[in-house]
């Protein structure tokens, strides 16, 4: 319940409403236990973008990390927010159920960052 108190009507739009992105949506991507990057990074993509584009962007950013080459892609775990899911890389964001401002969490069991630091 809001506790906001004001002297006058107070109505403002969200600065990050979907309509402000002209047909695109925000998606956040995080590689768990690899926090040396802009931790989750954010991109704006159209909903019909294939999920493979996200993987390409991840590679561009994360391949600096020695763990990237060690990933066993069959064991990788994906979450959208709190919920586990298995993305189909050939299907679109919309078809994979990824909405505006969703957070994709990518987990690679056994890979815990530089010297097991989580970075």
């Amino acid at each position, binding site marked *: 319940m*809001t*506790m*906001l*108190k*004001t*002297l006058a009507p*107070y*109505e*403002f*739009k*969200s*600065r*990050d*409403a*979907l309509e*402000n*992105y*002209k047909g*695109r949506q*925000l998606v*956040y991507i*995080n590689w*768990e*236990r690899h*926090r*040396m*990057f*802009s*931790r*989750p*990074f*954010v*991109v*704006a993509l159209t909903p019909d973008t294939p999920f493979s584009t996200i993987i390409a*962007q991840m590679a561009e*950013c994360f391949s*600096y990390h020695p763990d990237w080459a060690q990933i066993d892609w069959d064991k990788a775990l994906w979450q959208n*927010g709190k919920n586990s899911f298995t993305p189909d890389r050939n299907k679109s964001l919309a078809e994979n159920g990824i*909405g*505006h*401002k*969703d*957070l994709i*969490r990518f987990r690679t069991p056994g890979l*815990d*960052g*530089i*010297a097991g*630091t*989580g*970075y």
Partner: protein
Amino acid sequence: MDMKASKKLGLKERYTLMTRDLAWDTTYQPMDKVFPQTAYEGIKIHDWDKWEDPFRLTMDAYWKYQSEKERKLYAILDGFNQNNGHLSVTDARYINVLKLFLGSTPPLELMAARGFSMMGRHMQGAGPRVACQMQAVDEYRHFQTQIHSISNYNKYYNGMDEFAHQQSRMWYLSDGKSFFDDAITAGPFEFMVAIGFAFEYVLTNILFVPFISGAAYNGDMAAMTVGFSAQSDEARHMTLGLECIKFMLEQDPDNLPIVQRWIDKWTWRGTRKLASVGMMMDYMLPKRIMSFKEAWEMYVEENGGALFKDLARYGITIPKCFSQTIEEKEHVSHQSWIGFYMKPQATPFHTWIPTPDEMDWLSEKYPNTFDQYYRPVLEFFDAQEKAGKRFNNQTAPMNCQVCVSTIKFNEPGDPMEMCFRETTYQGEKFHFCSDHCQEIFEHEPEKYIQTFISSHQVLQGNCEPEGVDVNAPDFQPGKQILDYWKLDKRALGDFNGSEDQKNFAAWREQATKN
């Protein structure tokens, strides 16, 4: 001496005569119309005369002492500049802490000045009105003296001249801007808790005491004098904040839950704001007097703890976030430094990897965390840099909707895991760095849905230099972000190899021979 009993008025008498006795109740208009902001937050005040400034400072004494402070300050600044004082600092890396400190603080001082000017207008009692007016003038003084300091260093070092332009645009300045914007758009009593209490009483001690003492330790007399001169006013500001808290709690028991929520909120917001001060102390001062962790223990845990224990008689409890801040003091400075190190193309100051000696100091000061979680990462970056692959992470970060920090803090109890929190409001998702920021959002979502998050604004096409056509078919948002930020290209990149590094070495050489 018999003559001591002069005609001079006593302090208490003078204070009464020159504050309350100069005020009056309005008759042409009712007082609640003249002071329309005092009631709407729900704070009940029955007797404004119960508010007394314990310093009992009157305007005439104020001008006298403040002008004396200014004379001392500028005498030292002049001496420093006449003697090329900038070359007497420990090493040129030090200059970067000034770029961060002086580049981010003056606009916040100006916001404080604006805020206290408003309080000086809207507080109904004469006591707080006078004290707030003094504080407004103090904050302008800090703003001006800090800018004078910038002008002295800016003659020699890169990246300091566009701080005003960058304040409302750059990613890493958003947390401070958001802190003050949040405070100044609240009502007068919440503003007093936010700035007067949480910021001044609990938090400025960290910025202006051990950090400024550290500046002195590194040979920077100019930053030392500017910092301590400002802090000499802060003792008065802290007192004003504390008086305001006590006043509200003593006036009406109904004020307690409101005040408690504000204390919880602003202690946390201040804690987040200080994460970057942690890295200034632990990583950016070439010579360090104490770790951020030690400063936190001294000024926040002990001093803040003493205060909360004292306020328990009014029913105030320790802020909910307090235990998390104690856990985080072992981590935040390291997490912040790595956060800035990864972005060499996005700040007007340089970053670097600490020397082996400095890492040993960090191990000693952070025995529970540094070697286990942070040293291996810094050593990896160091090896990469030496192999010609200096880390440069170019993706845009995710930020907390409330404190606007980049999401980088660990899950409480698990330093390996990132802490994420989210909620949905009016069909839209919002993300937070912590339970405390989520709670702040949920209390007043109408306010925080308006947050300016730099990465998002770039992606909306709102962060382009003049002349860029955001509707052009080949438009790529953020391509020209450095120009939008007016970032001095010479100030980018690692400290090693920077123009500042070369100039400083050359100028020092010149200072010792013909």
